[in-house]
């Protein structure tokens, strides 16, 4: 049964017919935002975002959230870019754009819980990266946001089977990827690898989507994968776990991701995990509020 489901998913992913197209604004924005800082121009970003009025409104909402560290209210996209800087603005624009990737027919599973997890994980990744002196917190944010993109693919191409896996995970208190593997023969990391490659995301995003449940299988971007893996786990244990409460105890310092990341970030040894966990609790309300406000399915 699970082999059949797996084959069907792989076939559908191969043709990509049931998958959504990326929002028109997302691709040029991502390309543009990947340019070196010195080549970015304020007006071009403002123009790119302002082309889509709904996107512009969402970006302002997000830019004005304490989660993005604003100090003064931004009334226009230009204000927001000036207040937040190019990198944070990229975080905002990409977050708002990907939120529209979910299907409107949800087969009984509320897609907002997945976006809450992704946005929460992105924020945790960025703060974690800053806290341990990881070289690129902006990249960590982006990878945190997109690490579960395979779940969105499952919602499009195998909604019934995926919803059944979610139900089992909720009932058993088990991790979602294990339940997906049991009932569908494939989990969202494998799907995420295929779909993010198809959408031509960068290599690091693809590897994070593919390996975040098994960081030791990563090769080129091991520390980034490890960072997202630990952040993902922390979110799942802190009430931002796709609406699933995993009934288990974890010691983050025993996770493979910890050993991998400590090789590159010696500061990790002195990291205050307890305080970081309490800080994360402080985000949750705002993450719920933002996602419920900004979520718009296709």
């Amino acid at each position: 049964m699970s082999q059949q489901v797996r084959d069907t998913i792989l076939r559908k992913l191969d043709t990509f017919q049931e998958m959504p197209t990326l929002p028109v604004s997302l691709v040029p924005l991502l390309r543009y935002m990947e340019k070196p800082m010195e080549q970015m121009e304020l007006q071009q970003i403002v123009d790119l975002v302002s082309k889509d009025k709904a996107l512009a409104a969402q970006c302002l909402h997000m830019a004005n959230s304490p989660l993005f560290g604003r100090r003064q209210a931004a009334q226009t996209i230009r204000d927001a870019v000036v207040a937040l800087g190019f990198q944070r603005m990229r975080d905002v624009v990409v977050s708002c754009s990907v939120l529209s990737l979910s299907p409107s027919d949800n087969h009984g599973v509320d897609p907002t819980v997945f976006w809450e997890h992704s946005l929460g994980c992105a924020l945790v990744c960025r703060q974690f990266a800053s806290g341990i002196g990881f070289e690129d917190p902006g990249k960590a944010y982006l990878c945190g946001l997109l690490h579960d993109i395979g779940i969105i693919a499952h919602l499009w191409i195998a909604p019934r089977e995926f919803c059944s896996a979610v139900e089992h995970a909720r009932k058993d208190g088990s991790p979602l990827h294990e339940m997906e593997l049991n009932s569908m023969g494939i989990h969202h990391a494998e799907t995420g690898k295929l779909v993010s490659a198809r959408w031509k995301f960068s290599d690091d995003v693809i590897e994070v989507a593919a390996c975040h449940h098994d960081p030791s299988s990563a090769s080129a971007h091991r520390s980034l994968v490890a960072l997202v893996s630990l952040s993902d786990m922390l979110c799942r244990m802190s009430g931002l776990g796709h609406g699933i409460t995993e009934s288990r105890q974890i010691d983050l310092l025993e996770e493979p991701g910890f050993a991998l990341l400590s090789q590159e970030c010696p500061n990790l040894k002195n990291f205050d995990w307890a305080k970081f966990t309490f800080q994360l609790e402080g985000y949750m309300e705002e993450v719920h509020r933002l996602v419920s406000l900004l979520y718009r399915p296709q």
Partner: protein
Amino acid sequence: MTVLSATSRAVESFAAPDPFMVRIRDLIYQVAGIFHADNKLRALEERCMRRMQVLAIKTYRDYYDCLTVKSIRQAELVALLNEITIGETCFFRNQPQIDGIRNIVLPKILEQRAKLSLRHLRIWSAGCSTGEEPYTLCMIMLEETATRLKGWTFEILATDLNERSLNHAKNGVYNAYSTRNLPALFREKYFAANGNDLQIDRNVKNYVNFSRLNLTDETKMLFMKGLDMILCCNVLIYFDGASKKRVIQHFYNGLLPHGYLFLGHSESLYGVSEDFRLVHMPSSTAYVKGKRNV
């Protein structure tokens, strides 16, 4: 939704915290090990405001000075901590922690205890105040006697420094505020009406052994041994660094090799002890005595 309305609603929902309030938050974490996340800063502000009214202080900056450089800083810190923890005690105060104990920790402990061929559990509520915490634990254990704890016995030691609190606990009568989180099932099963209050069942009382103990009493602390779990919530925040380290060392020595230490919500051992492992359970954390596998 227009861009402008989106913006104004977002602006209404957020005001950047006063930088001195953030400093006060950090100071409390550094000194007492209790952290107020951003969504709890408003509550901390209210507590500070109460103290500022008493001291006739107008700004957070001046209050921060009181907590750091003025001659009253030690006394003021204790007064603020009292404000922070006031009204905290109630039955089922920290539901995720209770769920973690019942569904995750208890099975692990039973597995280890069974290896020792001792079908008996010892739990200590250190700083039990008026008894809500040990009675909550006791009710949870009693709920398990037909299933996980079939054939097991258990005892709950409950200590506090304050004689008046202990008398209240032994009396076992609680008002509506203390029982505000009490699930209906537990109310019906383990309490009887006593005027407007609720009286805890005698059977529950029999499992809990209340006594007076100062956690800094080195001699008496040596007798707290063979424990499976210690709960010490919002107590260590009042201790200075050295005393805190000593108390934690006693906890470590008193716990069995598989033992667990639970602190209050948002309370941390960072910088106090490296002997315990921090573990995460759903929406709660705990400290475990055992060594890491790596």
